[in-house]
C-alpha cells in the first residue's frame, strides 16, 4: 500500500458528475419563486459628468417593479481597502463606456431590457484620456480628482543591491522597450447574481465570485446592512481567471433591488457586458535595462513599467508591485531596481488575470534574455540553465525560493521539442520559442490588514461515517472542492467521493479569502488537513481502545482504521465514528489559527508593503 490512499491518485473530481450531467447549479441556473429580472444601464460615454438621471418613464413602464441609480448607493467601494474609488453605480460622473449607471427590476428580462431605454441620462461630456502617455502628461484632465500627479494612480520605486556597480562591471548592457497589449478573461459563464432579501431582513446573494468574503464586507459597507444579516454564496464559477475577483455593480444592484422589492432579483450580464466588467490584464509599457558579463552572468537589472489601469483601482496596487516583484525569481540577479507607475485612463478597469501582473514583464524580460543570448552567441536554452536562481535561496529582493524546477523543465522541453536544434531552422514564417516564468504560491497578506487566519475549515463526521467539509473557498474550475474533499479524505482514511463539501458560503463555512494568487490548495488545504487530523486522532483513539492496540500502530485508509502490522485487524470508519461520538460528543473540529499561515518570515516585499502602503483598517 502506498503512503497515500487518495493524494496523487487519478480519481474523478467530486463535482465531475454534476458538471457532466447538467446538474451543476451556476448562478444563472437559479430560479426562485416571485423572482424578478434585472438589467443594468451602462454609460455610453468614456468620460462625462452626469447632470441628471430621470427614471420616471422607466418606472411607469408596465412590468417594471423598481429602478435604482448611483444616488441610492453613493458609498465608495472597491476590492482594496486603501484605494476604494468606485461606486456600485456611477454617481455624478462616468469614467468608461460600459460603466454601470442604473438598474431595473422587472417581471421578466425583456421588460427590464426595454425599460433601460426609458431611463434618461443627461451627460456633459469631458475630454477622455485613452493612452498611458496622455494620462502621465495631462494634468489638466483629471479622471480622479484625488490623483496627485496628472492621472497617476500609484508609483512604486524599489531598489535592491548595488545597481551602479552592477552596471559598471557589466561587459554588455541591453536597453529595450516592450509593450504588452491587455487582454481579458472571457470566462464562458458571464457574471450572474441572484439576491433574495427575506421578511426576516436578511439578504442572501448567490453570485459567481472568486471572493465571497471580500464581497461580504463590501455589501455591508455599500448597503448599510450589517454583515451579520448578509449571506454570500459563491456559486460554482463557469470560469473566472481573475475576472470575478472584484465586487461588481450588478451584485450591489441585485441586492438593493431585492431589498426595495422584497423579492428575489437576478441579474445576469450578457457577453458584451462581461467585456465592460473586464478587470483584465493591464496593458504595460516596459523599459528593461540589463547588464551582463561576457559569459552572460547578469550583473544588474533596471526594470521600469507603466501600467494602463483603466478607470478604477481594482487590484491596481498589487498589480503594480507584481510587475516588478517577481522578475527576480527565475535567474540570478545581484542588483535590481524597479520603478512602476500605474495610470488611470477612460477604459474599463484592469485587474488581476492568471499570473497577475507577472505575465507582461515576463514577456519583455524573456525576449530580452533571448536577445542577450543572441548578442553573446549563446544557446538561449543553455543560457537560461546557466543563470538559474538556485533552490533554497533568497532573491536580491528577499523572496524565499524553495524548490527550483525550471532547469528540469528546460531539460524536458529540450527532449520533447529539440529546441536547440530546431531554433532558427524552421523556415520563413515559422519559429520556436521558450520562456521561463514563476509565480508565488499563496498571497502573504490579506487585502485588509488583520490577524485572523487566511483560511479556516470545519469538519463534521456524522453517525453514518459521513464527512462534511466546510470551507469558504470559491470553486472556479480549478478543482478546489475536489481538493478539500481529497485532503480531508486522505487525512481521515475515506475516499473523496464519501465527503460532502460545503464551500463558498459565508454563513455555513469558515472564511477563506478567495480563489486568487494560487493560494487555495496551500492555505485552505492546510486548514482542512489540520481540522481533519484532530478528528482522526479521536477516531484512532476510539479504534485503538476497541481493537486493544496502541494508537500509533493504527492507520486509516479506504474506510477502515486498521493495524499497520496486521491489516486484518480493523474497525470500519463508521463504527469508529460511533465510538468516538459516544465518548466525545458531536464530532466537529476546526482548524487552528495558524493552520493556513504563510512561513514565519514574510518576504521583504510583503514587509515593505505592510509598512509603506498598509491598508486602512476597515471602518
Amino acid at each position, binding site marked *: 500500500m502506498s503512503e497515500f490512499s487518495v493524494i496523487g491518485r*487519478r480519481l*474523478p*473530481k467530486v*463535482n*465531475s*458528475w*454534476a*458538471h*457532466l*450531467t*447538467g*446538474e*451543476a*447549479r*451556476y448562478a*444563472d*441556473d437559479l*430560479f426562485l419563486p416571485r423572482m424578478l429580472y434585472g438589467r443594468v444601464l451602462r454609460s455610453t460615454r468614456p468620460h462625462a459628468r452626469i447632470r441628471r438621471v430621470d427614471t420616471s418613464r422607466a418606472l411607469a413602464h408596465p412590468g417594471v417593479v423598481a429602478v435604482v441609480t448611483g444616488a441610492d448607493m453613493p458609498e465608495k467601494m472597491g476590492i482594496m481597502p486603501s484605494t476604494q474609488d468606485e461606486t456600485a453605480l456611477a454617481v455624478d460622473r462616468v469614467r468608461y463606456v460600459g460603466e454601470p449607471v442604473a438598474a431595473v427590476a422587472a417581471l421578466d428580462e*425583456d421588460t427590464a431590457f426595454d425599460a433601460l431605454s426609458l431611463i434618461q441620462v443627461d451627460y456633459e461630456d469631458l475630454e477622455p484620456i485613452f493612452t498611458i502617455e496622455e494620462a502621465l502628461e495631462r494634468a489638466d484632465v483629471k479622471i480622479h480628482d484625488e490623483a496627485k500627479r496628472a492621472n497617476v494612480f500609484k508609483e512604486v520605486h524599489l531598489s535592491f543591491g548595488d545597481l551602479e556597480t552592477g552596471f559598471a562591471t557589466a561587459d554588455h548592457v541591453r536597453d529595450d522597450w516592450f509593450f504588452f497589449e491587455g487582454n481579458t*478573461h*472571457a*470566462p*464562458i*459563464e*458571464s457574471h450572474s447574481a441572484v439576491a433574495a432579501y427575506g421578511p426576516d431582513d436578511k439578504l442572501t446573494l448567490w453570485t459567481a465570485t472568486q471572493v465571497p468574503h471580500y464581497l461580504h464586507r463590501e455589501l455591508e459597507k455599500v448597503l448599510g446592512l450589517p454583515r451579520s444579516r448578509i449571506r454570500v454564496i459563491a456559486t*460554482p*464559477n*463557469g*470560469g*473566472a*481567471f481573475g475576472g470575478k475577483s472584484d465586487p461588481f455593480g450588478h451584485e450591489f444592484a441585485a441586492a438593493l433591488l431585492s431589498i426595495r422589492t422584497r423579492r428575489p432579483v437576478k441579474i445576469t450580464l*450578457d*457577453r458584451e457586458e462581461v467585456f465592460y466588467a473586464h478587470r483584465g490584464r493591464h496593458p504595460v509599457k516596459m523599459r528593461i535595462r540589463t547588464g551582463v558579463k561576457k559569459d552572460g552572468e547578469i550583473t544588474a537589472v533596471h526594470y521600469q513599467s507603466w501600467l494602463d489601469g483603466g478607470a478604477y483601482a481594482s487590484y491596481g496596487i498589487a498589480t503594480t508591485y507584481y510587475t516588478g516583484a517577481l522578475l527576480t525569481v527565475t535567474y540570478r540577479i545581484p542588483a535590481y531596481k524597479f520603478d512602476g507607475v500605474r495610470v488611470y485612463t477612460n477604459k474599463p478597469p484592469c485587474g488581476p488575470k492568471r499570473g497577475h501582473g507577472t505575465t507582461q514583464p515576463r514577456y519583455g524580460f524573456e525576449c530580452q534574455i533571448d536577445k542577450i543570448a543572441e548578442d553573446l552567441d549563446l544557446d538561449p536554452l543553455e543560457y537560461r540553465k546557466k543563470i538559474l536562481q538556485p533552490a533554497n535561496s533568497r532573491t536580491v529582493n528577499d523572496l524565499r525560493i524553495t524548490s527550483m524546477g525550471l532547469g528540469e523543465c528546460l531539460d524536458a522541453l529540450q527532449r520533447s521539442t529539440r529546441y536547440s536544434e530546431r531554433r532558427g531552422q524552421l523556415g520563413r514564417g515559422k519559429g520556436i520559442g521558450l520562456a521561463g516564468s514563476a509565480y508565488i504560491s499563496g498571497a502573504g497578506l490579506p487585502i485588509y490588514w488583520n490577524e485572523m487566519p487566511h483560511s479556516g475549515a470545519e469538519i463534521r463526521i456524522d453517525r453514518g461515517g459521513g464527512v462534511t467539509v466546510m470551507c469558504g473557498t470559491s470553486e*472556479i*474550475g*480549478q*478543482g478546489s472542492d475536489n481538493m478539500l474533499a481529497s485532503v480531508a479524505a486522505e487525512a481521515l482514511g475515506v475516499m473523496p467521493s464519501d465527503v460532502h463539501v460545503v464551500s463558498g458560503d459565508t454563513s455555513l463555512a469558515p472564511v477563506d479569502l478567495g480563489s486568487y494568487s494560487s493560494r487555495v490548495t496551500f492555505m485552505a488545504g492546510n486548514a482542512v488537513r489540520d481540522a481533519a487530523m484532530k478528528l482522526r486522532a479521536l477516531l484512532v483513539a476510539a479504534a485503538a481502545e476497541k481493537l486493544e492496540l496502541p494508537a500509533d500502530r493504527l492507520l486509516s485508509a479506504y474506510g477502515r482504521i486498521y493495524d499497520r502490522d496486521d491489516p486484518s485487524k480493523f474497525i470500519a470508519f463508521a463504527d469508529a465514528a460511533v465510538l468516538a461520538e459516544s465518548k466525545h460528543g458531536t464530532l466537529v473540529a476546526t482548524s487552528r489559527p495558524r493552520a493556513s499561515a504563510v512561513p514565519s518570515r514574510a518576504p521583504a516585499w510583503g514587509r515593505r508593503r505592510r509598512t509603506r502602503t498598509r491598508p486602512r483598517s476597515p471602518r
Partner: protein
Amino acid sequence: MTKQLLTLHVNGELRTIAADSHHTLLEVLREELGLTGTKHGCELGECGACTVLVDGVPVLACLTLPALVGDADVTTVEGLATGAGAGAQGAGAGREAEREATLHPLQIAFAEEGAAQCGYCTPGMLMTAKALLDTTARPTRAQIASAISGNLCRCTGYTAIYEAIEKAASRA
C-alpha cells in the same frame, strides 16, 4: 408580446409550453422547461455552450427558434444519460457499476480524463462529441478538432477533451 403554445419533443418527453415567439430554444429549454444543463455563454452563436442535438445534429440553441424545431427530437445534456442503469443493476449493485451503466461513455471518459474543469462549456462539448461519435465511430484527432471547433473552452486547453473523446470512442 403574445405567447405561443409550443409542443417540443425533448429528451424523449413530449412537452407543451407557452413562450414568447421570439424566445430562442435556449431560453425555452432553460426558463420554461427547467433544463438548465444547457448553458448560455454568448447568445451570439460564437461559443457553443448552448449546443443541443436536433434529430441528432448539433445546433446552437441560442440561434434557434423553437417554432422551427417542429416535431424533431431535441436532446440536451440531461438526456445524455440513459437512466437505464438503476433498474438493470438491481438494488445491490455497486454505485460505480450502476453509474457506468447509466451514463454515456463520453460522460465517464470526461470524468476520468479531467476534461471538465469549470464545467460550463461541458454540456455543449458533450453534445457535439456525441453527434460526432454517432456518425464517426473512430474519429481521428483532426476530425475531433474539427467537430468541436465551435465549442470554446477557457480552462482545459482542449487536450484532455480530445483524449476523453478518443477514450469514449475506443470503448464504444
